[in-house]
């Protein structure tokens, strides 16, 4: 007989795993379906130093603990799957996977997280791992004594630019605006570093090379002038996009494709909640995702409790 879960959580990042911990501990039968890597963006963070109660930890360590906590409370987790169909408007919600497997639950929490934004310009895919990188901590030492470019103007871009100066002979930050979006301390740290220079109001248009990256074509947005810079490496840090492509015609989303929720993490569909980087909010941190996941799980538990009363 087909198993019907109390709660299905779509996504296993900080928000999804936290929701799994709370709902399983509340004795709700809980299934987490995860399309990506368990831990989500948290795993892609090398070091986390601002998660309360934990002095400094690796992103994958924190994700591993959360996963174990959820499993220990009885939460079932299925990862690396592809979802084909969402049937969320019915009282009993159904998720269909690409391989035809179906899962049903009385309530659903959407926690698909976000993904790093890519430039989508010619050469980006071709030179990934051959000069183009998305992680200075991982790949910085391949560029020892070389000249690299950092694309972006937020905290990640400027912090990673400073990290890269430990390896590279020269780091050039290219940013589309005439000001940075990073916190003041990150900007000051980058500006005082003698190895870092800045090219503002400029965007990359194409990556060129032979077997490895050799140059980047950039456009000055003020003048429209194109020029080609010879470089050894490019590090791209231009923010994140919510993983809501498949959901935007099912639940209400805003102009940035973020899911609109109320303070209880309720979406416009009864019994469907959302949490984490996929929702409309200002700050995206592990701590805020954990808070979202907690609220969503408690709201889902309340919803299920009220449904039972109605059914009696």
């Amino acid at each position, binding site marked *: 007989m087909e198993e019907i879960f109390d709660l299905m959580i779509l996504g296993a990042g900080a928000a999804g795993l936290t929701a799994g911990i709370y709902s399983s501990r509340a004795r709700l039968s809980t299934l987490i379906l995860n399309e990506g890597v*368990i831990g989500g963006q948290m795993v892609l963070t090398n070091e986390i130093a601002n998660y309360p109660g934990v002095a400094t930890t690796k992103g*994958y360590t924190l994700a591993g603990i959360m996963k174990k906590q959820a499993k220990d409370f009885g939460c079932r987790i299925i*990862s*690396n799957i592809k979802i084909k169909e969402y049937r969320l408007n019915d009282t009993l919600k159904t998720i269909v996977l690409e391989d035809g497997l179906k899962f049903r639950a009385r309530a659903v929490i959407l926690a698909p997280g976000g993904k790093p934004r890519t430039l989508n310009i010619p050469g980006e895919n071709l030179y990934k*791992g051959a*000069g183009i990188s998305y*992680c200075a901590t991982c*790949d910085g030492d391949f560029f020892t004594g070389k000249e690299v470019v950092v694309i972006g103007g937020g905290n990640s871009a400027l912090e990673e630019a400073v990290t890269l100066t430990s390896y590279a002979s020269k780091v050039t930050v290219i940013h589309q605006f005439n000001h940075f979006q990073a916190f003041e301390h990150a900007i000051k740290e980058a500006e005082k570093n003698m190895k870092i220079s800045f090219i503002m109001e400029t965007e990359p248009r194409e990556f060129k090379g032979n077997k490895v990256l050799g140059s980047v074509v950039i456009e000055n947005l003020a003048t429209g002038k194109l020029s080609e810079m010879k470089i050894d490496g490019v590090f791209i840090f231009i923010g994140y996009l919510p993983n809501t492509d498949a959901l935007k015609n099912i639940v209400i989303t805003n102009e940035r494709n973020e899911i609109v929720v109320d303070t209880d993490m309720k979406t416009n569909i009864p019994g469907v909640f959302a949490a984490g980087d996929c929702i409309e909010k200002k700050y995206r941190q592990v701590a805020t995702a954990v808070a979202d996941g907690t609220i969503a799980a408690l709201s889902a538990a309340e919803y299920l409790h009220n449904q039972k009363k109605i059914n009696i």
Partner: protein
Amino acid sequence: MKLLDTAVHEIETAAELGRIISENENVMVSCGRMGPMCVPVYDIMEELEQERSDVKFYTMGFDTPEAAPIRNNPMCMGFMGLPFNLYYKNGRLVEATSSIQDREQITSILDEYFGK
């Protein structure tokens, strides 16, 4: 000495690497660190290990001198992103990729070189 914290068996010496690729028909080795581009690949390998009994999955620490046969392999020349993912068929290196890979990218290589 073990450098990685994963459920996939970690190769610790060049001799062990040589023995594994010579004794097994289909082998995938991911050589990296516990970094954000590497961990997702190890997680995928951990899952594939349960599903693909025809392939042996291993990790290896990039920073050990014992990984020199991987770092210096001609097929990995020009690689500038971790992890290095290597695929061996009957002792011969048939494919190598650099940097993070998703499940589809890995399984398509497994299917192409090792069969479905």
